[in-house]
C-alpha cells in the first residue's frame, strides 16, 4: 500500500475534473452494472420531481402566506372530503409512481440477473473462491485438475485476475470477522461471513486494473484491505493462468495446511437455499 499517501494531503490538481465528472460513480466495466446505474438514475429523476413539488410547497407557501402578505389564515381542519382526497392521491401517487415502479424494476434485475446463477454445466464460467481475513483478500482458482483445494490451485494474495467477457462465480468466506468483497467498478458487494459461504457472480467486460475494497468494518486496518482486480483479454488470461499453474504447482507444499483453505465447490442453482453450510 502506498504509505506516502498517508502523510501528504493529496491535491486533485492533476485531474482537473468538472463537478459532474467528479460525482459520477467509478467506471462501470461489468455486464450488468448499468442496470443498477439505470435504476439509480430513474429513481433520481422521480425523486427530483417530487422534491421540487415539496420545495415549491415549502418555499412557495412560505412566501405567499407570510403574515404580512396573508394576514387572515384559512381556518380548516383539513378533514373535508376534498382535503382527504388530495392527501390520499399524493400518498398513493408517490407509492405507485415511485415505489412500485422501482420495486418492479429492482425485482426483475434481482431475480433475473443477480440471483440467476449461471449453469456451470452448460456455460464456460470462471470459478473463484475468496477468503477474507484481517486484513487481506485471498483468491483461489482451481488448477488444471479443475478441482479446488488441490496442490495445483492458483492462490493469490490481494491479486485477482480474471478474463474479460466470461461469467465469474465467486464463493466467499471469511476466516475471522465479517468483511465484504466490494467491486466498485461492477457496482457489487457481498459480505464475507465466517462460518457461512456467500456467493456472487459478475461478468467483467473491460480489460484493465481496478480496485477491490472491503466494505464492512473489520478492524483497525479495514481501510487498507484493498486488492487489485486485473481483467485480462481471454488469451492473456489463459497465458497467465498456465504460467501461474506451473509456478504454484511447484511451490505449493502439500504439507503446508495453511495453503489449503479452500473448500469443495458445490455449484449454485437458482433454487438452492443459502443456509448455514460449512
Amino acid at each position: 500500500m502506498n504509505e506516502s499517501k498517508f502523510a501528504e494531503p493529496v491535491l486533485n490538481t492533476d485531474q482537473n475534473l468538472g463537478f459532474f465528472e467528479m460525482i459520477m460513480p467509478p467506471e462501470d466495466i461489468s455486464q450488468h452494472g448499468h442496470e443498477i446505474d439505470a435504476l439509480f438514475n430513474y429513481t433520481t429523476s422521480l425523486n427530483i420531481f417530487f422534491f421540487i413539488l415539496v420545495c415549491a410547497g415549502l418555499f412557495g407557501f412560505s412566501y405567499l402566506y407570510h403574515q404580512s402578505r396573508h394576514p387572515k389564515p384559512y381556518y380548516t381542519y383539513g378533514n373535508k372530503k376534498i382535503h382527504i382526497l388530495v392527501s390520499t392521491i399524493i400518498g398513493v401517487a408517490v407509492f405507485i409512481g415511485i415505489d412500485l415502479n422501482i420495486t418492479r424494476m429492482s425485482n426483475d434485475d434481482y431475480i433475473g440477473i443477480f440471483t440467476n446463477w449461471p449453469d456451470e454445466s452448460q456455460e464456460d464460467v470462471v470459478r473463484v473462491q475468496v477468503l477474507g481475513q484481517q486484513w487481506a483478500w485471498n483468491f483461489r482458482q482451481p488448477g488444471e485438475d479443475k478441482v479446488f483445494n488441490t496442490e495445483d490451485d492458483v492462490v493469490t494474495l490481494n491479486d485477482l485476475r480474471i478474463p474479460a467477457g466470461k461469467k465469474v462465480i465467486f464463493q466467499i468466506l471469511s476466516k475471522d470477522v465479517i468483511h465484504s468483497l466490494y467491486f466498485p467498478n461492477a457496482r457489487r458487494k457481498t459480505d464475507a461471513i465466517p462460518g457461512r459461504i456467500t456467493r456472487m457472480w459478475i461478468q467483467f467486460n473491460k480489460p484493465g486494473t481496478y480496485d477491490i475494497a472491503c466494505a464492512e468494518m473489520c478492524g483497525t486496518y479495514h481501510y487498507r484491505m484493498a486488492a487489485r482486480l486485473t481483467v485480462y483479454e481471454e488469451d492473456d488470461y489463459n497465458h497467465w493462468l498456465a504460467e501461474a499453474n506451473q509456478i504454484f504447482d511447484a511451490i505449493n507444499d502439500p504439507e503446508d495446511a495453511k495453503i489449503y483453505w479452500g473448500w469443495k465447490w458445490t455449484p449454485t442453482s437458482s433454487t438452492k437455499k443459502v443456509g448455514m453450510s460449512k
Partner: protein
Amino acid sequence: MAFYEQHIHPKPTTFLSKYIFSYDHKVIGKQFLWYGILFLFVGGLMALMIRWTLAYPGQPFPVIGSFLFPETGGAVPADTYAMLFTMHGTIMIFYAITPILIGCFGNYCIPLMLGARDMAFPLLNMLSFHLAALSGLILMGSLFTPLGAAAGGWTSYPTLSTLIGSPGMGQTLWSLAIFVLGVSSTMGAVNYITTIITLRAPGMGYFDMPLTIWGLGLTAVLNAIFLPVLGAGVLLLIFDRLFGTTFFLAGAAATTGTGDPVLFQHVFWIFGHPEVYILILPAWGIVSDLLSFFARKPAFGAKATALAMTSITILSTLVYGHHMFTTQMSPLLTQTFMTLTMTISIPSAIFFANWLGTIWKGSIRFHSPMLFSLGVVFVFGLGGLTGLYLGTVTTDLYLHDTYFVVGHFHYTMAASVLLGGFAAIYFWMPKMFGTIMNEFWAKIHFWITMLGLNGVFFAMMLVGYGGMHRRIYNPFIYEFTQKLIPLNTFATWSAIIMGFAQIIFVVNFVYAVFFKKEKASQNPWEVGTLEWTIPSPAPHYNFKEIPVVKCGPHELGNPNLGNGRDFQYQTEELA
C-alpha cells in the same frame, strides 16, 4: 379522563431534592437536557475529528491534537479512528438524541400538555435518569481502558465485537452501557405510556392530544417493545465475551463450537429499524404542532397525521431486513423486505402533504421555532427520498456501506432530529426557564446550521454515490476515491462551520437560562395547549386545578373568535 387526581406535593427545599434527586418531571427533563447537550458536544467533537482525518489524513488535529495524540504528533491514529466513529454513533443516538428529544421533551411536555401534575411514576422517572447517567459514566469510562473503547462501529457486528476482533474491556463496557441505558429508556417508556393512557385531563380524548404527545407516545411504545430485543442481543454478546458462550462465534473465533454471527444482525436490526423511528417520531410530532402554531391555523388533517404516524410505527417493525441485503438472505425474504419497506412511503407522504397543507393559506410568522420546523420539512423530505435507493435491493447492493447511507441517515436522523430539537428548545424555553432566547441570534444559528448541515450531508451522499465506502481511516489509497477528495474536504469545512455555529446556540442558551433579566410572559407564542395556561416557568405543581378540556390543541384562526385573539385555549368552549 384522568383515572385519578394526583395530589400536590410540597415544594422541595434542599439542593439535593431540588436538583439531584428530584421527582419532578420538569427537573428530570432539564437534567436530561443538560446531559444530552453535553454528549452532543462530545459526539460533535468526535465527528469533527473524523471529518478532519478524512480531509487531511496524517495532519495533526488542530488545537487539541498534540495533547490527545502525542505518539502521532497530533494526528488521529487508525485504531483511535475506529473508536471515534463507533463512539460518535453510539453517543449521538443513545446519549444525545434520546435524552434530548425523548428524555427531556418527553418528560417535560407529556404531563404539562395532558393537564397532569406529574408522570404516573415519579420515582421510576428519577431512577430512569440516574440509570442513564450511570450508563454514560460506563461508556465514557470505556475510553480509558488499556485497549481503548469499543471500535467495531455502533452496530458492533460479531465476530468483530467478540473477543477475537475486540479484545479488552472496551467492547464489554460498551455492551454493558447500552444494556443499562436500555433499562433506563424502557422504564421511561412504561412511564410515558401509562401517563398518556391514565392521566389525560377530563375531556381530552386521544385525538385532542397535541401531535407532540402522539409522537412521544408512539416512540415510547416502540421503545418498550424493542429495546429489550437489543438488550437480549447485547446481553448474549456480553456472555460470549465473558463466559465463553458461542452464540455469535464462527470461523477462527469458534474454538468451542459455532454460533451464527448473522443472528446478531437480525436481532440488532429488529431493534435497529424501529430505533430510527423512535428517534424521529418526537420530532415529527413537534413539527406538526409548531407548523400549525406559527401558521395560525389548525394542523391540516391532524387525525390523519396521528394515524399515519401510528401506521408507520407498526410498519417499521416489519422492514428491518433492508439493512442486511448483502448478507445473502434468501431471495424471497430479501424481496419481501424490499416491498414492505416501500409501503412506508404512503403514510410518510400523507403526513408530508398534511404539513404542507398546514402552512397552505396560513398567516405565517417566521420566529425561530418555525424556521427550524420548516427546516425539518426540507431535510426530512430530502433524506426520506434518498431512503428509496437504499430500500431497493439492487441499488442497495452498490450503496450499502458507502457514504450514501451515511448521508441518508444523517439527513433523516441527525439533521431532522437536531433541527426538531432546536425548534423544541427555542419554543419551550419560556415555559422551562422563564425567558425567551434571543431571536436574532437564533435566526443566525438557523441559517448557518442549515448551510453547514446541507453541505456536509449532501457531500456525503455524493461521495457515497461515487462509491467511497464507510468507516475507513484513509480513503485516498484507492484509485476510485481519488477524485472524491475535494468533496471530502468540502464536507469537512461544512462540518466545521456547522460545529462553530452551535457556539452561537450555546451562548444564547446559557445566557437565556442563567443571565437574562427579562422574563417571558405566560403565553408568548399565543397558542392554546395546556402548558401555556399556567405561568412561565411552570410552578412545581403544574396545575393548581386540573383543567377540563373542551376543544382541540390547534384552535387557531377561528373566525368566530372575538377580543382580537386568534387562538383559544383547550380549556375554552369551541368558538
